[in-house]
Structure formats: structure tokens, C-alpha cells
């Protein structure tokens, strides 16, 4: 691939958006009456200051990578998946069941859990894809509805049939040891490597395979894809299945690696943040890695910022919002790019 000026601009836009967001964010910090420098350095220390905080940042990053990939993949097929949150929850609860109820050696137990997550998340996402392909139901509506159903359904499960009998709070019992993912530091576990590998696979799938060719063709121009003999309906369902499966992996890694049980709170809105991650990454898998790391460190650093600099941690959410706004307002950002010389 040759490298042109246009590619450079593609990369510059998210970077500039982040810088602008930090600048505008500092206005909000000033308004809250705290020091700008203090707050930002506390944010940085909170995110990367020690081994433990770095590990926790990565813990937050992993589900964002999966959910970012999920949204980005569907986007590349022209489908807007707002349902990553629901897909994550459904897969999470399914994994918790398999992780608790079936006795198996780890070498089989863990892959089985992943398979269950892929199928559960995939079917939950694929359902929205099917409704779109078959009946023309808009995926934005259906995935939002499926989110509500997933949330209420899993709440019901952890309060009722799946509730840990002795537990104080509503959650499922602890999974068996054979299903646990190996931890590295603190709650950080080997799912970070799984996320990296999956990112590579998705990149390859999109850009190097015939299936990826179809998905991209449908995403860019469904009429031309149809003309080329590509089954548009099939691809919409498939893309939503894969998208749901990716969100499902986020739920799986939360349950097996981070929490080791399931409750709806295992997701701190990762499914929704995934939309932001994908947007900032401009739906590019490698970009998803970077933007997931950014959002992961913002949300982890924010807690420390509140403790050290007493800056309200909502500032981090404001900055996240601003980043998205600036990415969306791509024209505004282009304005800040070096201009060609004027005569």
C-alpha cells in the first residue's frame, strides 16, 4: 500500500480531535476551580503511574477493544450495531453458567467458554441482522430494544434462578477454577493477549479474505454488491453475528478473567463506549487498539484524578464526549490541519 497525504490526514484527524478535546476539557477543569496541570498530571499518574495502575488501565482497555471491534466490524458492513452492551451481557451470563456448572479440565473448559460466548453473543447480534435482512427492521431500533431485553433478562437471572445462594448482592456463583483465566498483575489477565490476537484476526478477515471483501462491498455500496452477485442479506446477518460474537468475547473475558462471576454490572457501559471507540478509530481494527487504550486510561485515570487533585471524575467523561464530537465534526478538525500555500 502506498502512503499518500490522504492517509496521513486520516491518522491526523483522531489525534487532533484528542488534543482539541484535552484543550477544551481544561476549560471545564478551570470552571470546576481546580488546577489544569495538576488535574491532567493526576490523570496520567492514575492511568500509568505504577504497575498496578497500568494493569488496571489495561483491564478497562480489553473489553473496549472487543466492543470497539464489534461496532467497527458491523459498521464496515453498513450496519450500526448499538447492541454491543446487550450482546456482552447475554454472552457473559451464558459463560458464567458454563464456567460454574460443567466440570472439565481447563484446557477444554476455557475454550468451551469462549465458544459459548461467541455463539450467545453472535446469536443475539445475528437476530438483529436477521430482522433487518428479512423484514427491513432498522438495526438501531432493534439493537436498542435487544439491549433492554438483555439487561432485564440477566437482572432477573441473577436475582432469581442463577443467584448465588449465600451471596449478599445479586450475582452468580463463582466460576470453577478450571475456567479462570490466568491473572498477571492485579485483575489484569491473559485476555489482553487474546484481544490483540482477535484484533489481528479481524484485520485479516476484513482486508485479506473473500468474506471481508463482501462485507466491505456491502458496506460501501449495497446496490453494487448485489450487482456483483454478493448476497447482501446474508452478509448483513453474518456481519451482525460476528459483531455480536466480538461483544460476547468482551463479556467472556470479564467473567473468566476480571470478575469470575456474572452480574449485569460487569460492564461499565463498555458496549456503548465501544461505539465511541470505533468512531475515534474510524472503524479500523488497529485504530481500535489505540482508541480503546485512550478511553481505558481516561476512565481509569479519572478515579485517581478525583482522589489526588479533587477534580470531579466526570471531567473524564466530558473529555470522552468532546473527543467524539471533534471526530464527528471532521470538517472542523481539518481546519486545523496545515493548509496548502495560498496565492
Amino acid at each position, binding site marked *: 500500500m502506498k502512503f499518500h497525504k*490522504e492517509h496521513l490526514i486520516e491518522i491526523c484527524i483522531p489525534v487532533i480531535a484528542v488534543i482539541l478535546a484535552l484543550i477544551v476539557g481544561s476549560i471545564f477543569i478551570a470552571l470546576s476551580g481546580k488546577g489544569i496541570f495538576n488535574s491532567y498530571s493526576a490523570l496520567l499518574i492514575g492511568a500509568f503511574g505504577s504497575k498496578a495502575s497500568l494493569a488496571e488501565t489495561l483491564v478497562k482497555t480489553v473489553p473496549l477493544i472487543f466492543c470497539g471491534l464489534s461496532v467497527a466490524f458491523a459498521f464496515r458492513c453498513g450496519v450500526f450495531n448499538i447492541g454491543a452492551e446487550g450482546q456482552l451481557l447475554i454472552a457473559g451470563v451464558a459463560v458464567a453458567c458454563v464456567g460454574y456448572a460443567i466440570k472439565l479440565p481447563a484446557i477444554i473448559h476455557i475454550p468451551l467458554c469462549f465458544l459459548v460466548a461467541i455463539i450467545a453473543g453472535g446469536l443475539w447480534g445475528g437476530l438483529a441482522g436477521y430482522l433487518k435482512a428479512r423484514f427491513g427492521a432498522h438495526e438501531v431500533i432493534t439493537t436498542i430494544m435487544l439491549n433492554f431485553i438483555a439487561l432485564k433478562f440477566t437482572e432477573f437471572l441473577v436475582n432469581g434462578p442463577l443467584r448465588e445462594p449465600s451471596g449478599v448482592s445479586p450475582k452468580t456463583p463463582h466460576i470453577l477454577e478450571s475456567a479462570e483465566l490466568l491473572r498477571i498483575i492485579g485483575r489484569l489477565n491473559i485476555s489482553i493477549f487474546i484481544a490483540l490476537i482477535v484484533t489481528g484476526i479481524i484485520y485479516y478477515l476484513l482486508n485479506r479474505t*473473500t468474506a471481508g*471483501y463482501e462485507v466491505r462491498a456491502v458496506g*460501501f*455500496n449495497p446496490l*453494487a454488491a448485489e*450487482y456483483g452477485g454478493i*448476497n447482501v442479506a446474508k452478509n448483513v446477518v453474518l456481519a451482525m453475528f460476528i459483531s455480536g460474537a466480538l461483544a460476547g468475547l468482551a463479556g467472556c473475558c470479564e467473567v473468566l478473567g476480571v470478575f469470575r462471576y456474572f452480574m449485569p454490572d460487569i460492564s461499565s457501559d463498555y458496549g456503548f463506549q465501544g461505539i465511541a471507540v470505533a468512531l475515534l478509530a474510524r472503524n479500523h481494527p488497529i485504530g481500535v487498539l489505540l482508541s480503546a487504550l485512550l478511553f481505558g486510561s481516561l476512565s481509569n485515570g479519572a478515579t485517581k484524578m478525583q482522589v489526588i487533585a479533587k477534580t470531579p471524575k466526570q471531567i473524564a467523561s466530558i473529555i470522552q464526549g468532546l473527543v467524539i464530537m471533534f471526530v464527528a465534526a471532521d470538517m472542523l478538525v481539518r481546519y486545523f490541519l496545515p493548509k496548502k500555500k*495560498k*496565492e
Partner: protein
Amino acid sequence: MKVVEMMGITKEFPGIKANENVSFHLNKGEILALVGENGAGKSTLMNILYGLYQPESGEIYIQEKPVVIKDPNTAISLGIGMVHQHFMLIPPLTVTENIILGSEPVDGGIFINIDKASRKVKDISEQYGLKIDPFARIESISVGMQQRVEILKTLYRGAEILILDEPTAVLTPQEIKELFTIMRVLIEKGKSIIIITHKLDEVKEISDRIVVLRHGKIMGEALTSEVSTSQIASMMVGRDVVFRIKKETIEPGEVVLDVHNVTACDDRGLPALQGITFNVRAGEIVGIAGVDGNGQTELVEAITGLRSVKSGKISLKGKEITNLPPRKIIETGLGHIPEDRHKRGLVLNFSVAENFVLMEYYKSPFAKWINLSYRAINDFAQKLIGRFDVRTPGKETLVRSLSGGNQQKIIIAREIVRNPNILIASQPTRGLDVGAIEFVQENLLEQRRNGKAILLVSLELEEIMNLSDRILVIYEGSIVGEVSGEEATRDKIGIMMTGVKGEEEKGEKCVGAETVLPFVQNDEL
């Protein structure tokens, strides 16, 4: 007086100099024809004048004053108006609403004064003989009328200088005549016009002066009255162009495409094809002539599997293909050059190479198991680029950034090279330069010589008459007449195109109209 003067304009795109040191001028009250091969840089030059692109170097003078045109708003305020080849109108809105979009006249700062606007639209329309109804919805008026709306839009905003980029490519012969009449009125009222067109007889008819571009540079300039069409052609292409192609007689073979009593509906669910029957045999070119909107689009889509057939039967080489999914039909040996290259024919955000394999990416050698073989795809692309003279910086360039004519060449190359049993060519030479037209027509004849069948759908009678062995005339969804290629005359066909054969019974309204979603029809989950 020179109303426009561009001096030493240079514009580069990644890998290509679209304009190189280009200088020309436009006099007041003049029609200037800007001609040149596909990719010569005509649209780029005009986009610069309209403020859509910034040149790397060069100066622009408007009314003899130096200006910097940084965006279309500046251009409009300088009295420049442009009608793009792809119209920029919003179909559900009315003519007036479209015209005032972006410069709405408001009362008290809030309310749009639509009456005032429509009165002004009506005035301008009458003044220039545009015959536009200010209250008509864009989606319900013809393409020719839409183009006039675009012209009116520029006049409404005070244009003195009009740029028309390939305005005639989408028009019927009658509409072209009307457009020229309007252009003459505009000139009479003191406007000046730059027109881009590939049709040299139009250049001869309408323009006062000609500027020729080739490879981004000015190749020459002449008064229209002092040059012949073949002189212009050779200035453009750099060699002589044969206008009359030779066609040897071939005895047609077995029936390849057989369409029997086919009916289908249009997008609104109204009957568009009312029992069409015809066939195309091996070694034969069958032309479909007709006024735009008489069912040509639906007929082509029905054959290619892109629109569902309500009743009737279509077979290809004896195998029934009615309502099969498009891929099955393609694999039976069908090639299709669609009428709208942006809507159907290309994935604009794919590279040139990726577009070349749109029908075959899943087959060897382009696919190995689940993987794409980019090496094979790139080699293939390189070959086609050379053989079909596609002007592109490279095989990895996005098709979006190619010139219109070169985009068309990609489709033609892709479809011809697959060597299909039947090739459905819809407006195959739309937007191509004379050299490329000659090339494409020769390729079609080559296919015929090799015993392939070709169905040619075109609004251009000239093209149909030059190439076809048989000509079918379509009117309101029925075939109303047939003439052989030798007996065909403009008049004979022209009369049939107006449906003289007699009143046809209208079929009842189609039930179960197709869904708007394009992919629902060929659902085979």
C-alpha cells in the same frame, strides 16, 4: 471583454498532474467548448474555477480583476454558476425549495417566504424560456427538466458565467435540442457559458470557440467555424479517429437469451414491463431503442436478477434463469454494463483493482481458499489497465478519484474480459471520449464476431443504428416494433418510439410491490 481568465493553473493529485500550466479565457457572450479525452483534466479545471479545488499555482481573473476563489460561495458571489454532471437536487422537495436551499429568503428572520421565492423562480423561468413549474417535485420531473432546475438555480443566485459539465450525457435528443435553445437565449441576455461535452457534433452546433485539453495541458484552441469534427477529434486524441465502424455480416446462431412474456413492476410498484418477448442469438447485436423511462431499466434488471419478474420466463442458453439470484445468473454466462455507474456499477471506495474482480473475487486465481490473492488481483488489474487504456495513477487508487470516463472504462473492461455468452450493455459509451467510444464499439463487435450475443440498450439512436443487427423499440413497457439494422432510419425508429403502434392496454396495478430495501428481493437465507 474577458469574463474569465485562468493563467498558468497547475493542480496535482496524488500520483497525477490533473492540470499543468493551463491558461485560457472566456469572452463575454460566448459559448466555449472545453473538450479532451477522459481524464484530460476538464472537470478538475472547472472545479477549480468553481472553488471546489485549490490549484497549486496559477491565477484567476474574473471580469479582468484578480480573485482567489476559496470555495463555491465565493464563486457564486463572483457570478459563477456550475451544473455538475451528477445533479445535486433533493428528490422529495419541490423545485422552489431546491432552488432556495442554502439561501432561503426569510421574513422577520425566521419564516421562509416561499411565495416570494416561487414568484422569482417563475420570473426567471419565463425570462429564459425554461418552462419550469416552481411547485413540481423533483422526483416527478424528467432528467432534462431537473437539469433546467440546476441551471435556474445558478441564475437565481445571480450567475453571469455558467459552467455545464457534460450536460448532454443524460439527455434525450429532443432534450438536447431544447437545452441548446435555452443556451442561446442565455447568451442573448449577456451570459457567458463554458460547456464540456464529448459529442463533437454538439461542439460544432453550439460553441463559438474550442479549447482542447490533453494530459492536463492545453493542446490548442480554435474558432469552431474553422475546424471540422475530425480535426477536433484528432486534436483531442492525438491520432485520427474512424467514426464509421465496419461491421461484417454474420449469420446469427442459436438463441442465447430468450425473454418470454415477461412482466415486472417499477420501484413504486406500478407495472413497468407488460409482457415483453424477444430473443438474442449468438453473433447478434440486438438494440433496444426508446425514450428514457419506458421500461428499459426494469427490463435490464429483470434479466440480470436485480428485479423480480412477476410473470413470464427468461432463459439463457436454454437454462431458465427467471428470478434466480444474480450470482447464479452471472455464472450462467451473463455480463452487464449497468446504466448508472455510480449507483450500481462500481464500489467507489474500492480500489481500481478491487473493482475489477467484483464478479470473480471468490474464484481462483483471485481467491485461494478463504483468502484473497492480492498478487493475482493486482496482476489482473495491471493487464486490464493497459489493455483498456484506463488512465489512473495506479491500481490501488480509489475509483472515486478517477475521471467519469475512466470509471466507465473499468466496468467495460471487467464485463468484456469475462467473455460472457450474453452481454447486456446499457448506455455503454455514456461519458466516454471519441477515442474510447470507438474502442468500446470495436470490442462489442469483436464479441459478436466471436459468436457472443449482445443486448444493447441506449438512448442514442446513432449508436444503436451503427451497431445493431436488429432494433427493437420499447414503449411503455412493451416492444412496439422491430426493424433490421440495415432498414433502420432515424425517422422510422423515432416514430415508433412515440408509441404509434396504437393504444396498449394498461395492466392492473402490481400487488405486493417490492420492498424498498434492495436486498430483500433475492433473499435466499
